[in-house]
């Protein structure tokens, strides 16, 4: 079971090789043994998970099983799940038990999947290292002195360390892809609007998108088949026909036009990362791909544009955390203003406060035009670059992150350095495009490197095909971090 993919677990459940209760117990045991040293999970509730597993087994016995019935999955703690503590990595929600299910959780429940627990994350998804979590940093299974990336670091580390066969993540500026790259797993951020945001605690509404994290492209497709779909409760959700995202997995890649933006390979990424990515590109050439040079001239602007728009939206989205109706409230206050000030001063961490301040500043009277409006205009230019690029290629490839996993504490004192770790991923969110990361090698220190694949709008099936064919030809994705085989760490 240790190395089983989601697909293999699903097949094993179908053939009766094992039951959902057995699989769930297996992963709960792994969590119990390894989570202390990795800190992947904020909440685990074995009883609740096993109850779901028993229900799944009953469903199967009655002949009503679907593809993911009975498989255990980890859920990022940004998704509201009824009856579960849902903290978003923040002290502010450290006492918030959600009374309702997010759309994504509803879909997994309806599919009969088992919730293994809620994974650790940067506070309100603001961070690229998982160090901003109120619940402490997640450790990278490949090197426990290093970060797993963020903000979906708990999900990434849990999947890499085989504490869960797959997990959900959310990606506002790279929060699925960058931790996937840093932990050697696969992660997909779908086209904006494909996965409902209902019940996914908002960071930056126009950029946030939920997506799957798993060890193979095929598993991502199985997850996305459940997660994607129109939801009337999210006005930005897109009404489209249902599709099987794994329908094209086996298509050969002959004639695939792979666009390489020169900006992705200019100075900035480490030599090891560039080497691994170039190796992957060579592999694609072997698989029948043809390489096309493309350019994303405005990509350099994506980090500053993002750090105007995302904090602007966040400053407003996080206003509801005021201590009035739920969540943390300061214990000692004399009046309303003091209640607000102390609640928010004590309830939010430093990075969240920094972004609220930036956001309030760029939206304030007299600065709005210079920052917010200009950033919106540039956002359109950045998206237009991709439209141009996709006229000559089918997918764009490059590094996911400029470096492999960095040390805990290495960048936490320097926000700008931290922000730059998302330089290759942010533009994709600004354009609303789908992007994914798959493992494509290791650096000289043995840390995984991620290959980023960016597709055109709604080309998820094609991207999964592109990733799957690579995974048939290579074995980077089956490597396991050292020290994760044993039950005791």
């Amino acid at each position, binding site marked *: 079971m240790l190395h089983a993919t989601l697909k293999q677990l699903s097949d094993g459940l179908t053939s009766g090789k094992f039951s959902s209760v057995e699989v769930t117990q297996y992963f709960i045991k792994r969590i119990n043994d390894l989570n202390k040293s990795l800190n992947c999970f904020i909440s685990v509730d074995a009883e609740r998970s096993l109850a779901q597993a028993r229900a799944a087994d009953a469903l199967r016995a009655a002949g009503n099983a679907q593809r993911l019935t009975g498989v255990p999955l980890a859920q990022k703690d940004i*998704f*509201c799940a009824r009856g579960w503590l*849902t903290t*978003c990595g923040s002290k502010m*929600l450290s006492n*918030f038990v*959600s*009374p*309702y299910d*997010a759309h994504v959780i509803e879909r997994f429940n309806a599919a009969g999947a088992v919730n293994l627990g809620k994974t650790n994350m940067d506070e309100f998804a603001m961070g690229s290292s998982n160090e901003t979590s109120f619940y402490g940093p997640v450790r990278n299974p490949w090197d426990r002195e290093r970060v797993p990336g963020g903000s979906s670091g708990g999900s990434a580390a849990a999947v890499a360390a085989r504490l869960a066969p797959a997990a959900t993540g959310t990606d506002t500026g790279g929060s699925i892809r960058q931790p996937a790259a840093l932990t050697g797993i696969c992660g997909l951020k779908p086209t904006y609007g494909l996965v409902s*945001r*209902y*019940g*996914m*605690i*908002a960071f*930056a*509404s*126009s950029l946030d998108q939920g997506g799957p994290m798993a060890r193979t492209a095929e598993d991502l497709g199985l997850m996305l088949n459940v997660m994607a779909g129109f939801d*009337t*409760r*999210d*006005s*930005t959700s897109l009404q489209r026909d249902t599709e099987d995202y794994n329908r094209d997995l086996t298509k050969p890649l002959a004639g695939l036009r792979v666009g390489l933006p020169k900006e992705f390979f200019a100075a900035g990424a480490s030599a090891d990362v560039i080497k691994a990515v170039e190796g992957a590109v060579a592999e694609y050439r072997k698989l029948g791909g043809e390489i096309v040079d493309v350019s994303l001239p405005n990509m350099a602007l994506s980090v500053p544009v993002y750090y105007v728009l995302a904090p*602007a*939206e966040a*400053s*407003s989205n*996080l*206003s*509801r*955390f*005021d201590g*009035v*109706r*739920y969540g943390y409230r300061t214990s000692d206050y004399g009046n*309303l203003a003091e209640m*607000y000030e102390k609640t928010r001063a004590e309830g939010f961490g430093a990075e969240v406060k920094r972004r609220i301040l930036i956001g*309030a500043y760029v*939206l*304030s*009277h007299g600065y*709005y035009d210079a920052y*917010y409006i200009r950033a919106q205009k540039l956002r359109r230019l950045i998206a237009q670059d991709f439209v141009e690029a996709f006229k000559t290629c089918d997918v764009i490839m490059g590094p996911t992150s400029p470096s492999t996993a960095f040390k805990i504490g290495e960048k936490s004192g320097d926000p700008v350095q931290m922000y730059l770790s998302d330089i290759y991923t942010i533009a994709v969110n600004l354009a609303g495009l789908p992007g994914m990361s798959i493992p494509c090698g290791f650096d000289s220190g043995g840390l995984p490197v991620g290959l980023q694949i960016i597709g055109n709008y709604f080309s998820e099936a094609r991207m999964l095909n592109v990733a799957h064919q690579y995974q048939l030809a290579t074995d980077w994705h089956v490597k396991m971090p050292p020290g994760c085989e044993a039950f005791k760490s």
Partner: protein
Amino acid sequence: MKWEVVIGLETHAQLSTASKIFSGASTAFGAEPNTQACAVDLALPGVLPVLNKGAVERAIRFGLAVGAKINRRSIFARKNYFYPDLPKGYQISQYELPIVEGGSMTVLVGDTEKTVRLTRAHLEEDAGKSLHEDHHGATGIDLNRAGTPLLEIVTEPDMRSSAEAVAYAKALHALVRWIDICDGNMQEGSFRCDANVSVRPAGTDKLGTRCEIKNLNSFRFLEKAIEYEVRRQIEVIEDGGKIVQETRLYDPDKDETRSMRSKEDAHDYRYFPDPDLLPLEISEKLLTEVEENLPELPQQKKKRFVENYRLSLTEARLLTSSYNIAGYFEGVAKTSLMDGESLGSADFKLCASWVINDIAAKMNEEENLPPWAFRVSSETVGHIIRRVREGIINAKTGKELLVRFWDEGQRKSAQSGGYIHGGYLQQVDELIRDEGLSQVSDGSAIEKIVDDVIQANAQQVADFRAGKEKAFNSLVGQVMKATKGKANPQQVNDILKRKLAE
């Protein structure tokens, strides 16, 4: 110095949708606190707004009714500020691109017509309520009202007196009910005004510094608040002071306005487009649909009443003061027709007089009677008028029937707790038959009674012959009394005159 008063109004009209503007919770008034607040209204983490199409249709309806431009694309923005009854920490409103722009309303101030230009009307959500009593020193929050749809209707600074402002507010109040987008219930806060007031030396163009008086929920308070504020501003300036731009509250108990917050304390609302809501696009189809369902507007109806029904302007104005009255009047006219008559030959003057004088009088007897709650149906009233016109009963009997039915309707309604009409169309004829209400038009019968009356009232006859006209009325009264009011009054007049002249 002579001063000119300049007033602009911002009115919040609560739109009459069954559910809230961005959630499915009910908008019904008066429920237990927080029982009509769903996850979205409570602003739980992760929830999202979904726009109620009914609110959009009502805003379009209003825009069309005032001849405004309907923006085919408008934007919802977030207005950010912290307050405990504002659950999200921002209000979703429209800022730079509202759904309705421009338009105007023509209102009657005394006998002159006045046109007030509208700046815009935009959709927004209401906040909850803070309850400062009964919570042992703490403040209670009721979020039932949070998310209720509002249309904020903003005028240009076109009004020059409290009377003009009140006339506009009343006309607007009638219009929103007429087009059925707001119930207009001012006690429940469904229709409330903010007044922007400034003064300037008469004959000058530059606007003075304005003060905004918030939340005026009756026409009387609107009038008194403006009048107080005008006096205050003139006094301040004449004493050599300066008006400070600020928000003020009107205290009806003390009849004065008080400073609430000055411009310096004003919030920076940090407006920006709400990323949870796509720009609101209005299709040609929706626009056409709303337009086709728009009722005839008061101005059009008034014109038609004057031109087609040959009513006076005053009558037409009174009858079009509300949609219900106008509809009632037309219903009465329709059923007042005699066999073979077409609407064109109806006695509109007579019907108008019944509705304006008799029905209105009965309506006014009851406080808090909803404007649509006529105690007798328009069909029944029309039928009574028909029988009068046919000469079957006289007008006095007819009006007695109306009052009788009305009181019965009132009684039945009070018993049932609902609204029940008194009487019914057929009952008019049943009562005429069973109680012998038909008027006596038999000339010889009347002549005999007249002879008796003349004989028994020698003094009055002498007085009349001596030139006292009043004595004639007294004699008519005697004849009517003798016939229990059923004699045809015209015939009584004619016969009496003839006999007295003999």
